[in-house]
Structure formats: structure tokens, C-alpha cells
């Protein structure tokens, strides 16, 4: 009997210390039956990828409010690829201007979720993106 769960890392990089949004998403994913590893604020891309590796997550969700997404996201993706973890689904949430969405997706970000997104949309997106047989 396997007991496979979707595992998601929720990280909050950058210097802005406000993580209310990230915590709301983390709780919603837990309530949807996922195992959410919450790492707290001020995570560097190196810390995020190290945690993603150790925790063997299916999804990395990055919450960015500071406007630093065009600097942080490419670095996270680069480090993931360097670890042969290109199959990890990377999602970005927070305040992302429309014109940055296409470049982020071109880099390999699978989903971009703005401030108005319902947590249900994020849950559905993850369930569809993660191709693992999941119990429970």
C-alpha cells in the first residue's frame, strides 16, 4: 500500500518580510490534502532549491511581492536544472506585472498567479500539473 502525497515547498524569497499571502496558500494546499513544507521568509534561491531537493517536492511555490521576480525566478530555475530537478513544477505568486508573465513562462515557470487568484485555482493547477498517482 503506497501512501503518496503531493509535496509542495512554499517559499518567500526577498527582503520584504510579509508572508500572509504565502501562509494562506500553504494552509489551503494542506486543506486540499497536500503536504506543504513552509520555509519562512527571506529565502535565497540557493536555500529554496536546497530545501526542494532535500524534501523531494513535486512543486515549488514562490511568493514574491517585492518586484524582484525577474531576478529571483531565473536563478531558482537555473539551480533546479543544475540539480537535474527540471521536472519540479515551479509556480510564482504575488504581484507580477502582466508583461512579465510571458518571459517567466518562457524560462520554465509553469504557472503565474496574481493577487486576485483563488486558492482553488492554484489547487486545481497543481493537481493537473503533477503527474503522480496520489492516494487519499
Amino acid at each position, binding site marked *: 500500500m*503506497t501512501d503518496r502525497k503531493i509535496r509542495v515547498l512554499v517559499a518567500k524569497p526577498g527582503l520584504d518580510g510579509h508572508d500572509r499571502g504565502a501562509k494562506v496558500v*500553504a494552509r489551503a494546499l494542506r486543506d486540499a*490534502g497536500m*503536504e*506543504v513544507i513552509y*520555509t519562512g521568509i527571506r529565502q535565497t534561491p540557493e536555500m529554496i532549491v536546497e530545501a526542494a531537493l532535500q524534501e523531494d517536492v513535486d512543486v515549488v511555490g514562490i511568493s514574491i511581492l517585492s518586484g524582484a521576480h525577474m531576478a529571483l525566478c531565473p536563478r531558482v530555475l537555473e539551480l533546479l536544472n543544475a540539480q537535474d530537478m527540471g521536472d519540479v513544477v515551479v509556480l510564482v505568486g504575488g504581484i507580477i506585472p502582466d508583461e512579465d508573465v510571458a518571459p517567466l513562462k518562457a524560462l520554465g515557470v509553469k504557472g503565474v498567479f496574481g493577487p486576485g487568484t483563488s486558492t482553488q485555482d492554484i489547487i486545481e493547477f497543481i493537481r493537473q500539473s503533477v503527474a503522480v498517482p496520489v492516494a487519499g
Partner: protein
Amino acid sequence: MQLVDELLAGNRRALARTISIVEDGGPAAPPLLAALYPHTGRGHVIGITGAPGTGKSTLVNALARSYRQQGRTVGIIAVDPTSPFSGGALLGDRVRMRDLAGDPGIFIRSMATRGNLGGLARATADVISVLDAAGFERILVETVGVGQAEVDIASAAHTTVVVEAPGLGDEVQAIKAGVLEIADLFAVNKADREGADHTVMALQMMQGLAPVPAGHHGTTGGTGRSHHAEAGAQPDGGWLPPITKTVAMRGEGVEMLRDWIELHAVHLRETDGLARREVARAATELDQILRDQLITALLTRLPPGHLDATLAAIARREIDPYTAGAQLLAQFS
């Protein structure tokens, strides 16, 4: 096996993958564990348990740093409860362990309690084995001290540290029954807060080392030891759990705690304690494995629908569960 070879060669991604397979408990797990088992038995396993918010994660962070200063490698397993409603979990212990980031001598893994308690003990013991085989010299296992699960997990640890903190109410009442049985060491954390000395006294009272003040008669079970007994290894070969005050946030008292852990490890090696713990650990694990495998073997022998029909019959009171169990077991004869 490629995954095992990579893990033994120090590949951290292979290690993380192996832990997932072992934790999920599918058919791929037993051969992996079998291949890893000859490489286990070197790491010292330290359980850190205590009530929510007492500072376990902060203490694990500080202890791990202290071990790293001695050049020892540290594997960490942080267990948090699965929500009984959704089956999901919010695993937040890493928040307090950010000092350990970027250190190749550290590996941190968060684990949810998932299914039944016995299953948790099995999964935890298996993940400990994986970290042990990967060569981590000290393995710290954080569990929230709320019940039987901790006792089960403690059986997988060589040294169990029970973390208390002041301000949980009336200390004597707040210190849970049962901790005396599992504690090899006590850490009174948040010693920067008022009341830490009260907590220490309450623990000493439970150990029978301090006089019980009026109003608390009968709330503790004294061990009958002399009031002058020194903590640690006893002349009669026993071990009296030392009580260490710590301020985990600032690292204070943590070296002392680490040294006590090491003394306990020495004590286990010098007495028959280590052998007894290894046997107890084997018993817990084998018990769970046999249950799992017998049930699986039985279920595969039953005709489809048979189990559901039996359950329904029991529910309708047409048969009692003991007779039904005996009838199912007759499949083996």
C-alpha cells in the same frame, strides 16, 4: 541498485528520492531497505520531543550547529501531524532551521504523520535507517509530544530528549505522565523566561530528587533515589536523566545538552543498554512489518469483495469480529 549506489556515494538527490520511496511504503521500499541495511548501525539516533511550541525546532537547529562545530554530520527528521480532516499537512519546522542552510554536512527532511500510528513508527524507523546508511553520524528526530506516537518513535531513538518550557501552567500538572519513562535527558528550554527554575524543580520532584511541596501530594511518582544523587550514569548501572536549562534561540546550554547526549551514548555502549534498545527497536519494526505483510498476503488470497462482505456482516451483527477474523485466517491453513 543504482539508487542505492548513488546514495552511498553521497548523492543527496538519490538520498531524498530514497526517503520518499521508503516513506510512501510501496513495493519498491523493501528491496531498497534491504540493500541499505548492512550500511546502518553507525549513527546515533536522538529523539527530541515535547509539547507544541516548547522550542524543539530551535533546539534542533542549535544542537545541529553544535555538532557541526565538532565536525560531525547531522541528519534531521522533523515530524509534524497530518490533518485528520484533509490528509494534508503543514510542515513548518524548517523555518527555525535556516542557520543550517548550505551546509553539506546537514540534511533536513520534514515528515507528516500520515496514516496510523504504527505506520508512522515504521516510516520513521525506515527513514532513520536511510539517513544512517547515508553516513550521518548524529540523527535528530523532532516529534510533537502529544501521545502514543512519541512513545513509539522514542523506541527508535537511542537517546530521547524531552523538551519542557516554563509557563505552560502549573508545572507539575503540565509535565505529562509518561515522559519519565521515555526521557533520557530533559531540556528546560526558554530558560531566559521566568519560571524556568520552577520547571526544573517540578522535574526533580518527579524524579524523586526534590521534596514535594504541600498541595502536590500524590501527583508524582518518586523513584526513591537519594536527594543527593547526581544525574547521569549511576553506580548501579542505571541512568538518572539530567536536566539541562537551555536558551535555544541564543545557543545557551546547548553544548552542555550535547555533552550529556554524548555521555548517554557512552553509557549505552558501556552497559547492555545499547543492545537492549536495538532489540526493542527491532521488535517494534518487525512487529509492524509482519502485520503489514500478513494483512497484504491475506487480502491477496481473498476472493474479490470478500472483505467488504465480511465487514458488512460484522456491521449487521450476523457474525462477531473474532469469529470473522478466525475464518479469514483459515485461508492460510
